[in-house]
Every structure is written in structure tokens, then in C-alpha cells.
């Protein structure tokens, strides 16, 4: 019914239109949108393809400023050595109060975060000394720092070069 009514209305309007404006027979201005849509689609495709949505993130690192003069003395019982071999095996060893350290303990990468949280749960003054092998992959360094940042602990770490003694410890522990 509504459709029919509508139809009647338009025809009536059309009649009136014809009578009052005999020259203006055109039914309004029709703009063909097709070229515009084409262009817009092209632009859209261009922007979709050129956009880099995954913006790189940055990880802040602060190296200790101090030179040799103002070295900080750290109690060995608060030290955690994290040694990583060239093959990427991670060994933790906790320092002891008498200046020695516990034998290295192999930690699988997936357990680094939980193990760190355990250690910090027991002693929140722990200072991590990171001794990475020069042959290790750079991406592993980033991953380990990432795990340290993810662990719910205060970030206290410093990078130290791997010396012959450290290499020996790692070698004896399985390389």
C-alpha cells in the first residue's frame, strides 16, 4: 500500500513539475560517483600497502657512567652472575658471602623470568652481572634483557666482558 501511495505521489509531483517548470525536465543533478570511487580505492590501496603499522619499539639501556675511580663495592652475596655461552646456553650462579660463587646452574630460556623472580623474592638487593659470550647472537641479548624487563623485579644489571675464567666456568658446565 505504501509503495503504491508513494508511486501515486511521485507521479502527481511529476505532473506538477511538468506544469510549473516546463524547461526543467531533468530529475535533479546526478553526479556519477564511479570515477571518484575508483580514485579513492586506488589511494586506499596505496596507503594500505605503504603503511607500516608495526612501529618499532625501543628498549632503554643505561650504562653505568662511572669510570674506574668511583667503582661501587658490591657484597658478593648480592651478586647473580648470568653467563651465556656462544651456543646460547644460559647459566646462573649466585655469589656467596665469602667471595666465591655457587656452581653454575643451567636455566632454560623459558624459565629465566620465573627463576629471576624466585631469586629476587629471596633477595631483592640482587645485582645481575651479565657476561655474554662474544659469539652469542645479538637477538639473544635482546631477549634476555626483555625477560629481565618482563620479570616483576627491579632492573639492576650491568654488562661485563666474559673473561677467561668465565669461559672456563661455562665450558665446565657444558658449554
Amino acid at each position, binding site marked *: 500500500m505504501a509503495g503504491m501511495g508513494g508511486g501515486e505521489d511521485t507521479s502527481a509531483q511529476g505532473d506538477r513539475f511538468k506544469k510549473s517548470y516546463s524547461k526543467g525536465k531533468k530529475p535533479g543533478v546526478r553526479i556519477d*560517483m*564511479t570515477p*571518484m*570511487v575508483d580514485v*579513492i*580505492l586506488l*589511494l*586506499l590501496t596505496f*596507503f*594500505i600497502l*605503504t*603503511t*607500516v*603499522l*608495526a*612501529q*618499532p*619499539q*625501543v*628498549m*632503554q*639501556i*643505561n*650504562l*653505568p*657512567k662511572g669510570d674506574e675511580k668511583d667503582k661501587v663495592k658490591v657484597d658478593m652475596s648480592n651478586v647473580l652472575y648470568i653467563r651465556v655461552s656462544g651456543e646460547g646456553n644460559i647459566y646462573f650462579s649466585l655469589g656467596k658471602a665469602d667471595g666465591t660463587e655457587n656452581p653454575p646452574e643451567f636455566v632454560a630460556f623459558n624459565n629465566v623470568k620465573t627463576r629471576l623472580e624466585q631469586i629476587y623474592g629471596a633477595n631483592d638487593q640482587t645485582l645481575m652481572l651479565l657476561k*655474554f*659470550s*662474544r*659469539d*652469542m*647472537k*645479538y*637477538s*639473544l*641479548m*635482546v*631477549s634476555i*634483557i*626483555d625477560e629481565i*624487563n*618482563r620479570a616483576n623485579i627491579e632492573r639492576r644489571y650491568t*654488562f661485563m*666482558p666474559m673473561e677467561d675464567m668465565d669461559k672456563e666456568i661455562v665450558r665446565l658446565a657444558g658449554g
Partner: protein
Amino acid sequence: MKKPKAAKKPGVNIDMTPLVDVILLLLTFFMLTATFKAAESEGVEVSLPESINVDTTKLPEIDVMTITLSPTGDIFLDVDNYLVREEVFGDKFAIGVWHPDSTSKSEIIETGKVGDVVLRRKPVLLDKDQFERTMNELRVALRNMTDGKSDFRIVVKGDRDGKYGAMEDLMAALKNSGNTRFALVTEIKHD
């Protein structure tokens, strides 16, 4: 007789307006979020390592000193301000290259390539002392140009297949030259 009459309808008219609306919205979104990689500012391409850390910050957009570690252990020193490059290196498109002696062979010195790509920037070879000095010269040059208003922020882009040895040498150089604050660029990885 009736069939041809029924076919007289003037085709099917699809209203394009909602489609155009949506496409325009999408277009606006992509235009506003797009960030372009300037081929010239990107000296050396590396595949970044991934990290899942949640509180990482975004890469700064201007006044960036980019130190790139190639997979073979070459260290590239670049800044995003060509005037500074021209002042320090004497060439708008120059890029500093340092290859620590302790790491393996240098790709750029031997083949002039980084990976499979020929470096289009003019390499300026530096040794360790020159590298440390140049970093500070670049920073001083920018400070002088901007009346001390801006300073470079150091970002390190390492290749995920590179070795830590080059990074260790780089960190020693950064520490020696007093540039103890820097950032490692990573790609975000979702758990």
C-alpha cells in the same frame, strides 16, 4: 509479450554512498597513520630482533642518531639531519662505518655491500677513537645549529643474526665517549 516488458527495468541500482563513506573513512585512517620510510634516511636495512616487553616506548621521530649493527659486525653511524652530516662528514649522504678489529671480516670494506644490497651512502671509515669522537662531534654540531635546543637520542638497531661481540665493542665505545643512555630498537612480538 510479457517477458520483454519485465526486462525493461533499468538495471539494478546499487547505492554506492555507504560504500564510499566507509572507504573514505578507511582512507583517512591510513593517511593519518601512515609513516613513510625515507629511503635515504634508512642507511642500512637490518632485520630487527623481537621483544615482548610491554612498557617499551616508541622510536623517537626526529634528532635520532642511529647506530646500526650489520650481521657481519660492521657498525654504521648515521644521523637524521643532513646538515649535521655535511658539517661533520663533509657530505650530505655520508655514513660513518666502524669495524671493530676483534670481530670477523668487514663486509662493507671488502664488497661494498650490506647483505645483498649495495650501500648507496658514501661510507666514511672510522676507527674506534674516531668513532667515539665523531659521535660527540655530531651531537655538538646539532647543538650549535639549534642553539642548544636539541640533542641527538641514540638508538641502536642490531641485526638479529649479528653477534654480540660487535655490540660489546659498541657498548664499550658508547661508555668511553660518555653516551651512556641509548635505546635498542626492537620489533614488538605478541605473546
